[in-house]
C-alpha cells in the first residue's frame, strides 16, 4: 500500500470528481484525429460506411470508454503492474513465435478464441511502462553508470529480438527507438547515444556491404525495400509502384485538394493499402495542403499537450510514462508520414488513430488512458 500512500495528497481528486480533471483538450484532439479517419475511410470505400468507417467507429467508441475508465485508475497501479505486464508480453511474443498465425510470410498474430491479438503492439506500451518504473526506482544519480545502463538495454533488446524473429523489422525498429527515447528522457548520458549512433552507422554499412554474400544480414525483400526507397523508379511495377503512386496522389492534392470523395488516384485504385498504411495519401489528395497540414498540426498538438502534462507533473514515474507514450505515438505518425512522403523506406507502419485496424486503435486509446491517469492523479 506504500504506492497508494505516496500519491495520496489533498490536491489529488478522488471518485467521480476525477472526470473534471481529465485533460479534455487531449480527448477532443484524439476524437478530431479519429474523426478525420472515419471521413477518409468513408471516402475511400466509395461513399460506403459499412466497409471500414462503421467498424472503425464502433472500435473507437469502445476505445474511448476504455480510455476514460483507465483515466480513473490510480497511477501507482500502473507502476505496480509494470513488471508483470512486461513479462506477460514477453510470454505472448514467445507464444506468437511458436503458435502464431501466419500472414504475409510473418507470424504476428495470436488467435485467442474470437480475438486476434498482436502482442508486438502491446509490447510497445509495456516496454514504456517497465522502463518508466525502472528509472523511477533507480533515481537520478545512478542512471549513467554502465551496469545500470545495461539493464534497460536488455529490457529493450529481449522483446526486440522476439519481434525480429517473427520477422517484423518495422516494429523492432519502433521498439528500439521507443526504448532509446525513454533512456534519453531519463537522463542517460549523451555519450552512450553518441556511441550507439556511431556503431549503428557502421552496422548499416555492414548490412549494405553484406548483400549477395553468404553472410547476408537481412532478407532479400528488405534489401529491395531499401533499393526502392533510394530510387522508387527502379521497380515501377513492383514495390516502387506504391511509393510513386502515393507521391503522385499526395502531390496532386495541391493547395486545397480535389475535394471530398474526388481523389482520382484513390478512386481508380492506383493506391495500395489505401485504407491502412497509405491512408494519408488519400487525405492529402482530397483535402490538399490545408487538410494534411491540419492533421499534422493535430498530431503536433497531441504531443505538445503530453509534453506540457509531463513537464507540470512532479511525479517522476508519471512524467516518464507520459513522455514515453507520447514518444511512441510520435514515432508512429512521423514514420508513417515520412514513408508516404518518400523521406523514409516503406516499413509498414499505420497512421495512428486514422488507419483502419482494431488492435492498433484500441491499444493507442488505452495508452492515452494511462496518460490521462497520470494527468488526473498528478501531485500538484
Amino acid at each position, binding site marked *: 500500500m506504500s504506492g497508494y500512500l505516496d500519491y495520496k495528497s489533498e490536491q489529488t481528486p478522488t471518485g467521480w470528481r476525477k472526470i473534471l480533471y481529465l485533460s479534455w483538450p487531449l480527448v477532443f484532439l484524439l476524437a478530431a484525429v479519429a474523426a478525420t479517419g472515419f471521413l477518409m475511410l468513408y471516402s475511400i470505400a466509395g461513399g460506403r460506411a459499412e466497409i471500414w468507417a462503421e467498424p472503425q467507429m464502433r472500435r473507437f467508441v469502445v476505445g474511448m470508454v476504455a480510455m476514460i475508465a483507465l483515466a480513473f485508475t490510480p497511477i501507482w497501479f500502473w507502476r505496480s503492474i509494470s513488471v508483470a505486464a512486461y513479462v506477460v508480453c514477453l510470454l505472448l511474443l514467445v507464444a506468437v513465435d511458436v503458435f502464431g498465425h501466419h500472414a504475409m510470410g510473418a507470424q504476428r498474430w495470436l488467435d485467442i478464441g474470437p480475438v486476434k491479438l498482436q502482442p508486438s503492439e502491446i509490447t510497445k506500451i509495456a516496454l514504456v511502462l517497465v522502463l518508466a518504473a525502472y528509472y523511477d*526506482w533507480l*533515481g*537520478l544519480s545512478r542512471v549513467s553508470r554502465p551496469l545500470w545502463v545495461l539493464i534497460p538495454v536488455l529490457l529493450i533488446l529481449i522483446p526486440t529480438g522476439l519481434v525480429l524473429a517473427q520477422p517484423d523489422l518495422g516494429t523492432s525498429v519502433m521498439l528500439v527507438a521507443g526504448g532509446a*527515447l525513454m533512456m*534519453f*528522457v*531519463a*537522463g542517460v548520458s549523451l555519450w552512450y547515444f553518441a556511441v550507439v549512433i556511431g556503431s549503428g552507422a557502421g552496422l548499416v554499412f555492414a548490412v549494405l556491404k553484406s548483400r549477395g554474400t553468404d553472410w547476408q544480414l537481412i532478407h532479400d525483400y528488405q534489401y529491395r525495400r531499401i533499393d526502392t526507397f533510394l530510387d522508387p523508379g527502379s521497380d*515501377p*511495377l513492383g514495390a516502387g509502384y506504391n511509393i510513386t503512386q502515393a*507521391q*503522385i*496522389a*499526395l*502531390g*496532386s*492534392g*495541391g*493547395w486545397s485538394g480535389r475535394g471530398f470523395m474526388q481523389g*482520382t*488516384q484513390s478512386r481508380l485504385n492506383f493506391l495500395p493499402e489505401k485504407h491502412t498504411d497509405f491512408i494519408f495519401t488519400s487525405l*492529402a489528395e482530397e483535402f*490538399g*495542403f490545408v487538410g*494534411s*497540414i491540419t492533421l*499534422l498540426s493535430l*498530431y*503536433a498538438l497531441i*504531443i*505538445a499537450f503530453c*509534453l506540457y502534462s*509531463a*513537464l507540470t507533473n*512532479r511525479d*517522476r514515474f508519471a*512524467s*516518464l510514462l507520459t*513522455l514515453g507514450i507520447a*514518444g511512441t505515438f*510520435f514515432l508512429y505518425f*512521423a514514420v508513417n*508520414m*515520412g514513408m508516404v*512522403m518518400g*523521406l523514409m523506406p516503406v516499413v509498414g507502419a499505420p497512421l495512428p488513430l486514422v488507419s483502419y485496424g482494431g488492435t492498433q486503435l484500441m491499444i493507442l486509446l488505452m495508452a492515452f488512458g494511462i496518460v490521462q491517469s497520470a494527468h488526473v492523479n498528478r501531485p500538484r
Partner: protein
Amino acid sequence: MKKSARDITDSNRAINRRALMLGAVQAAVVATLGWRLKTMQLDRADEFRMLSDGNSIKLRLLPPARGLIHDRNGVLLAGNEANYRATITREEAGDPELVLARLRQLIPMTDTAIEAVLAEIGKRSAITPVVVADRLSWEQFASIAVNAPALPGVSPESGLSRSYPRAGDFAHVLGYVGPVSDYDLSRMEDPDPVLMLPEFQLGKLGVEARLEERLRGKAGTRRVEVNSAGREMRELERIEGQQGETVQITIDAALQNFAVQRLGEESAAAVVIDVQNGDILASASAPTFDPNLFVRGISGPDYRALMEHDHRPLADKTVQGVYPPGSTFKMVPLLAGLESGLIDAGSRFYCPGHTTVAGRRFHCWSRGGHGSVAAVASLERSCDVYYYELAQRIGADRMAEMARRLGIGVRHELPMSAIAEGIAPDRAWKRARHDQEWQVGDSINASIGQGYVLASPLQLAVMTARVATGREVAPRLVRAVNGAAVPETDFNDLGLREANLRTARAGMDAVMNGSHGTAARSRILAPEWRMAGKTGTSQVRNITAAERARGVIRNEQLPWNRRDHALFVCYAPFDAPRYAVSVVVEHGGGGGTVAAPIGRDILLFALAGGLPPLDAYPAGQRGAIEEMRARMNLTPAPAPQTNGRARA
C-alpha cells in the same frame, strides 16, 4: 525506497531538461514533414497533378509471347501468329458512329457488330481503346492504315494470337486459350496485371490451363509520353518482356494424328504409353474439334453443334471418360487370385455357360460354356464363369486392392483437365457411397469389369503397362521445359510374383496368338512385334431373363446409345515390351471385332515408327488395310521447328 524532496526536485529538473530537448527534436521532425508537404503539395503540385491526370508519362505493358508447345520430336503443336486488329478511342474519334460508318466501307462489319462496339465505347472511358475488328487480313489492315486521316481515333494494331497448327489432333490434350473472364480473375489471389490487357489470352483447359504459369511469360514495359487526349507522342523507354517457357510434351504428333484418324467417326478414345518410362505417346479422343475456333471466339451455332453432338466431342474421353472395363479387367481378379494363393495357374473351374449364386443366374458370354478352364485359357477365351467362381473365393477387397495396384481407381496426375479417378469398388466403398452392404453378386459383376467398376482409357493403358513390366509405371506428359529434360523416374517393382505375372501375360498372348483367342483375327504376324492383348465388351443395359429366353437382341438392332462398349488393351513386343495401348469405342459393339483391330493398328504404327509394312498383317486382311489407309487423311509431319520465335 523513500525519496527525499531534493532527489525529486533534481530528477524533475533533469527530466524537464531532456523533455524539452526531446520536444525540440520532435518539433524539428514535424517541421520537416510540414516542409516536405509544402514542397510536394504547393511547389510541385502542378507536376504531380499532371502525372495524376495521366497527361505526361504512362507506363504501358507489353504482353509477352506465349510459350510454344512441341511434340516429342519438336513438331510445333501450339504457336503464336500475328493478329491484325483495329481499335477505336472515343476521345479522338469525336463522332464514333460516323467513323464506324466510314470504316465499314473498308472492312465488312455487320449491324450487330457495330452496335456492340458502340455499346462498349459507351461503357468505357473516353481514352480507353475498344476493339472494333479482330483478325483482319493484311490487306484490310493496310487499307485502314492508309485511310487513317479519314478515320480519327481508329488505330490499326498488331498483336499475337494462339494458333494450333495440328487443329483437332491435340484439342483435348492441350486444351485452348481464350479471353480472360471476370470469373478467371476472381479465382486468382494476385492476378498478374498483364491479364487486364484487352485481348490477352489465358489457358482455359488442358495443358494450356494447367501449365499457364510457365507458358504465360513475363510482361515487358514501355514508358511513353502521351498528350492530354491519351495519344502516344513518343516512346521513352522499352523493356522487352520474356516469352513463356517452351514446353515439350511426350506425345508423338504423327502417332497422335494416326490414332485420331483411326478412331474416325466413332465416339472413342485410345491411349499409347511407353511402358519403360511412362511417356504418353498418344492420347486420342474422338470425335474431336478445332481449338482454333475457341481462340477466335466460337460462334453460337458452332458451339451449340459441339454441345448437342451425341458423341460429345468436347469431352476428353481418354482421361475424363470412365467406362466399365468389361473383360479387359480380368487380369486384375486373376492376379489377385494367384497372389492370394487361393488358386494357382493350374486350378480349373468348370464352365457350363452359366452359374447360379444366391438364387440368381449369371451367364457366360458363351451360351454353350467353355468346359473345364484354367488360368491361361480363361483369358484366351475370356470365360466369364471362371471369374465368377474365382470372385466368390477371393472376395471384393482383394480384387479392389489389386486394381489399385495396377492403376485403376487411382488418379494419375498429369497436366490435363478433369482427370477421372475411376472406381475400384470394395466393401468400404459401397458402404460409404451407397450405404449398403456388399453382395456376392457385386463381386461376380466386378470380376468381369462390370457393376461398379469404372476405369478411364488412361488407367487401362497404365494397367496394361504394369502387367507387361511388373513395375509401377506412372504416366507422364511433359518431356522437357525450355530445353531442359524432365528427369525420368525409375519405377518401383510392383511386388507381384514373376510366375503369376507370366501366367497373366501368357493368357494375354493366347488372346492374340492362341487358337481360340478372342482377338486372334487381329494378331501381328511379324515375330519381332508379337503382341499380347485382352478384349472386352461391356454391357450398358440389363438383359432380362425374358429377353434371354427369347434370344438376346443383337447389338446392331439396338439404338446406338444402348449398344455395348468395345474395349481392347494390348502391348508389344511380347518378349521385351515397349508400348501399351488401350482403346475404348463407346457403344461400338464387340471388343474383339471393333476395338482390337484399332488397337493393333495403333500399336503397329508406334512400333514401326510410321505406317507398318503390310506383311505384318495376316494375308487375308491386307487388302482391307490398304483400303482403309487410302481413306485416312493423315497430316504429313512438318519440319521440326526449333527456333522459339513466333511466325509473323
